[in-house]
């Protein structure tokens, strides 16, 4: 029975991904991609990876979807008319069709070889889950994924926050776009009411997610994504203006989480190696880092949407 459900989910995943990439209408492609993101969240839940399901729903489908819809809005002015038919189908001429056919063939062969290889795999020699379980006591948290994310492979997470910060800095480099000003239109009263109702709840549950991360699925990334969602909602309800290039305080907020993480990492060098939490204070230090990250990730993820999102002035 389980495999039937998984099978259906996999078919839905493949179908929505295929339609998202091959549909002629750009708007339909973006919406189908958001459906694909939500189905991915279901798939992670089925693979009993609740942390990833949370992140996929909040970041993969939610924030990426919002960014894509925003980009779509800029490509065609808000006339609501169906998007100019940018043909997703391969070009009609023979050379184009042959090229498409050969690329599809190569991709198909690669998929077939990989699929065949998956069935030949021997059992892995190194069993990391046991090692994680064995060292959980010294990790300072009870939830294995948070222990791996912040302690065992904390160095990955340090670099990953740097990746997010550098993406935002890349956005700042580009400055205001010369695109058509987005048509603001009259504010939707119902959306304003919903925003006022939901945002406090979102901030509360972000705090809950941050706190729960120590012993249940949750953590800084999911909490930060929720804060970003709150900011996006406020902006759509026109209660929060778009951000121009950030001032000193906002820059501190954006880089603050990363600087805290960096500072703790450097200070812990005295313990013998980078990011070596003394077992006694490990839990407290991880919570400090996660709290700083939640605020900064919330601001950065919100910034990816809000920066220069307003009516751009001509350069």
């Amino acid at each position, binding site marked *: 029975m389980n495999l039937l459900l*998984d099978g259906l989910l996999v078919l839905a995943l493949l179908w929505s991904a*295929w339609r998202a990439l091959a549909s002629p209408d750009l708007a339909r492609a973006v919406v189908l991609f958001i459906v694909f993101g939500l189905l991915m969240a279901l798939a992670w839940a089925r693979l009993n990876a609740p942390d990833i399901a949370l992140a996929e729903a909040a970041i*993969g489908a939610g924030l990426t979807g919002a960014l894509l819809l925003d*980009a779509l809005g800029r490509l065609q002015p808000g006339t609501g008319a169906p998007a100019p038919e940018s043909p997703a189908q391969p070009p009609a001429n023979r050379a184009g069709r042959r090229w498409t056919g050969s690329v599809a063939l190569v991709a198909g062969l690669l*998929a077939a070889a990989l699929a065949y290889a*998956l069935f030949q795999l021997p059992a892995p020699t190194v069993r990391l889950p046991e090692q994680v379980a064995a060292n959980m006591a010294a990790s300072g948290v009870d939830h294995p994924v948070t222990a*791996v994310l912040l302690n065992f492979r904390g160095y990955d997470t340090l670099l990953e926050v740097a*990746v997010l910060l550098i993406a935002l800095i890349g956005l700042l480099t*580009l400055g205001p776009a010369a*695109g058509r000003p987005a048509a603001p239109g009259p504010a939707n009263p119902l959306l304003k009411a919903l925003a006022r109702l939901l945002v406090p709840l979102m901030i509360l549950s972000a705090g809950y997610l941050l706190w729960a991360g120590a012993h249940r699925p949750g953590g800084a990334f999911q909490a930060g994504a929720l804060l970003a969602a709150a900011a996006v909602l406020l902006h759509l309800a026109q209660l929060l203006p778009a951000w121009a290039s950030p001032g000193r305080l906002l820059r501190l907020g954006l880089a603050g989480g990363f600087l805290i993480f960096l500072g703790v990492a450097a200070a812990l060098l005295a313990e013998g190696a980078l990011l070596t939490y003394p077992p006694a204070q490990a839990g407290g230090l991880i919570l400090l880092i996660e709290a700083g990250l939640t605020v900064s990730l919330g601001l950065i993820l919100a910034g990816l949407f809000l920066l220069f999102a307003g009516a751009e002035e001509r350069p």
Partner: protein
Amino acid sequence: MSAGLLYALAGVLLFALGLGGIVLLRHALRRILAFNVMGSGAFLVLVGLAQRDGGADPVPQAMVLTGIVVAVAATALALALLRRLPEDRP
């Protein structure tokens, strides 16, 4: 044929679909969609293979969490660059 292996197979197919999409599609926004599909496929293979004989393995799950955040960072930068291209030939 455990659930993990099934999802790993789905991941392989999604990866091939995304890779084909990146090469074939001409509109930049579609290529960004294809990249995200490809990334999701690779993540599915990472967790699916690691959990092919049951049992949740937190290490690949933490890696995928890192990967999802990296993917959204890259997508946001790509969309910002897309905004700078002249509208006629995205």
